[in-house]
C-alpha cells in the first residue's frame, strides 16, 4: 500500500502543474474532437489499423485457398478435443466442438470486460477489479486451449509451416491393401472414399505412411500432402491473434493492479484506462469472430 500511496501522491503533485495535460491530453482548448479523450480516440484508430492487418491476413488466406485445387476441410482437421473427449462422439470425431468452446471462453471474457467498464463508470473499485480478474481468467483459459490445439497439431498430427499432412481426395475411390496392393476382396470391408474427403497422413517412427488407393476411373495413386499454405496460414494467423490475446492479458493485469491500488480513483475520470483496455479486449474477441468464420466454419 505504501508504494501505491506514493504513486498517487506523485500523480497529484504532477497534476498541480499541468492540470489540463492529465488525461485530457489535447493541447489548445477544452473542446475535444468527437467528444472523446485523446487516449480513447487513438485506441480506436490503432484498432482500425490493426483491423486492416488482420483483414490482410484473412484475405490472403482466401486468395490462397481459391488458388488451390483442394483445401483441407476444417471439420476433419479440427475434430479432436483434450482428454479424449472426441471419443465420446459418434465415430470418435468431435468436429469443431473444442474450438466452439474456445469461442465461448472469449465471448464470456468479453462480457465480463463490459461489466468491468460499467463498474468503472460508477467508480466502483471493487467491482472493476472483480470483473477484470474474471476477464483475465477467461483470456488465460483461451490461450491454454490454443496451446493444446497447437501442441496436438504439431506433436500428434505433425503439421508444420512447411508440411501439411491433411490432404483431400479429388476423386471417388477405394484404398488398396498395403500388403497385397489390391482392393479388399468382396465380402471384406472395402474402405472407400469420396471426392472432397480430407484424410490425415500418419507418421510412424519418422516415416510418412501414404496409403495407396485406386480411383473409380481405375487410376492408382497414393495419398499426397495437402497445400502447405494451410499450415503456414493457420500458425501465422492464429499465432498473431494469440499474441494479441497474450499482450491483452498483460495489459489487463497491469491495469487491474493499478485499479486495485486506487490510482484511477484519484483520476476521477470514470476509470478511463479500464475503458481503453476494454476496447482492445473486445477487438481481440471481434477478430476471433472472423478467424473462427474463415478458418473453422467455412
Amino acid at each position, binding site marked *: 500500500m505504501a508504494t501505491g500511496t506514493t504513486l498517487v501522491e506523485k500523480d497529484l503533485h504532477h497534476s498541480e502543474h499541468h492540470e489540463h495535460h492529465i488525461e485530457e491530453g489535447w493541447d489548445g482548448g477544452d473542446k475535444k*474532437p*468527437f*467528444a*472523446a479523450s485523446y487516449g480513447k*480516440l487513438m485506441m*480506436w*484508430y490503432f*484498432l*482500425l489499423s490493426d*483491423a*486492416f492487418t488482420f*483483414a*490482410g491476413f484473412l*484475405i*490472403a488466406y*482466401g*486468395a*490462397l*485457398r*481459391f*488458388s*488451390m*485445387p483442394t483445401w483441407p*476441410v476444417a*471439420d476433419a482437421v479440427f475434430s479432436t478435443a483434450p482428454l479424449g473427449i472426441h471419443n465420446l462422439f459418434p465415430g470418435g470425431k468431435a*468436429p*469443431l466442438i473444442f474450438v*466452439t468452446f474456445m*469461442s*465461448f471462453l472469449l*465471448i*464470456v471474457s*468479453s*462480457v465480463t*470486460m*463490459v*461489466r468491468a467498464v*460499467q463498474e468503472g*463508470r*460508477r467508480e466502483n473499485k471493487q467491482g472493476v477489479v472483480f470483473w477484470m480478474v474474471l476477464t483475465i481468467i477467461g483470456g488465460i483459459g483461451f490461450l491454454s486451449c490454443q496451446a493444446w490445439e497447437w501442441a496436438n497439431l504439431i506433436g500428434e498430427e505433425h503439421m508444420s509451416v512447411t508440411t501439411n499432412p491433411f490432404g483431400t481426395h479429388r476423386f471417388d475411390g477405394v484404398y488398396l491393401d498395403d500388403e497385397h496392393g489390391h482392393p479388399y476382396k468382396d465380402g471384406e470391408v472395402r474402405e472407400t472414399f469420396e471426392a*472432397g474427403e480430407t484424410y490425415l497422413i500418419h507418421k510412424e517412427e519418422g516415416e510418412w505412411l501414404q496409403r495407396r488407393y485406386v480411383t473409380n476411373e481405375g487410376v492408382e495413386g497414393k495419398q499426397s500432402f495437402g497445400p502447405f499454405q494451410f499450415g503456414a496460414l493457420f500458425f501465422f494467423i492464429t499465432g498473431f491473434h494469440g499474441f494479441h490475446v497474450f499482450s491483452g492479458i498483460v495489459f489487463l493485469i497491469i491495469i487491474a493492479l493499478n485499479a486495485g491500488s486506487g490510482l484511477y480513483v484519484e483520476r476521477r475520470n470514470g476509470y478511463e484506462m479500464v475503458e481503453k483496455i*476494454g*476496447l482492445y479486449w*473486445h*477487438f481481440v*474477441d*471481434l477478430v476471433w*469472430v*472472423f478467424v*473462427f*468464420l474463415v478458418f*473453422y*466454419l*467455412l
Partner: protein
Amino acid sequence: MSQISYEQAKKDVFRGFWLLFIITIIEVVISLFGKGWLGIPVHKIWWLYGIAALVIIGLSIYKANYIIMEFMHLGHEVKGLKFSVLLPTALLIWAIIAFFQEGDSWKNRRELIKSKNAIQVDEASQKTDDALDLRD
C-alpha cells in the same frame, strides 16, 4: 451510458451474452450441416452449401456489428467518431473481390499450364520446353 439506468445496462450485457452464445451455436450447427456431418450430404449440393456459407457469413457480420456497437460502445459515440472508424473498412470490400478473383486466376493458370504440359509433342520441342523449364 447516461441515458439508460445502471440496472438496464447490466441487463443489456447479459442479453448480449446470450445473443452471441446462441448465434455461435447456430453457426456451428449450420457449418456442420453444410459439410454433411448431420447425415445429409449437403456438401455435394453446391447451391445449398453456398446458402449455408452465406448464412454463416451473415451471422458472423451480425455478431461483429453487435460487439462493435454495444460492447465497444461505438453505436453510442459521436457520429464523426463512428464513421471515421467504420467507413475506411469499406475499402476491404474491394480487397476481398480483387484478391479472391486473383487467387482463382492463379489456379486456372496453373491448371492451364499443366494441361498444356500434358500434351505429347515431338522430341525437339520437348527439349525446348525443358530448356525453358516450363514444366510444373
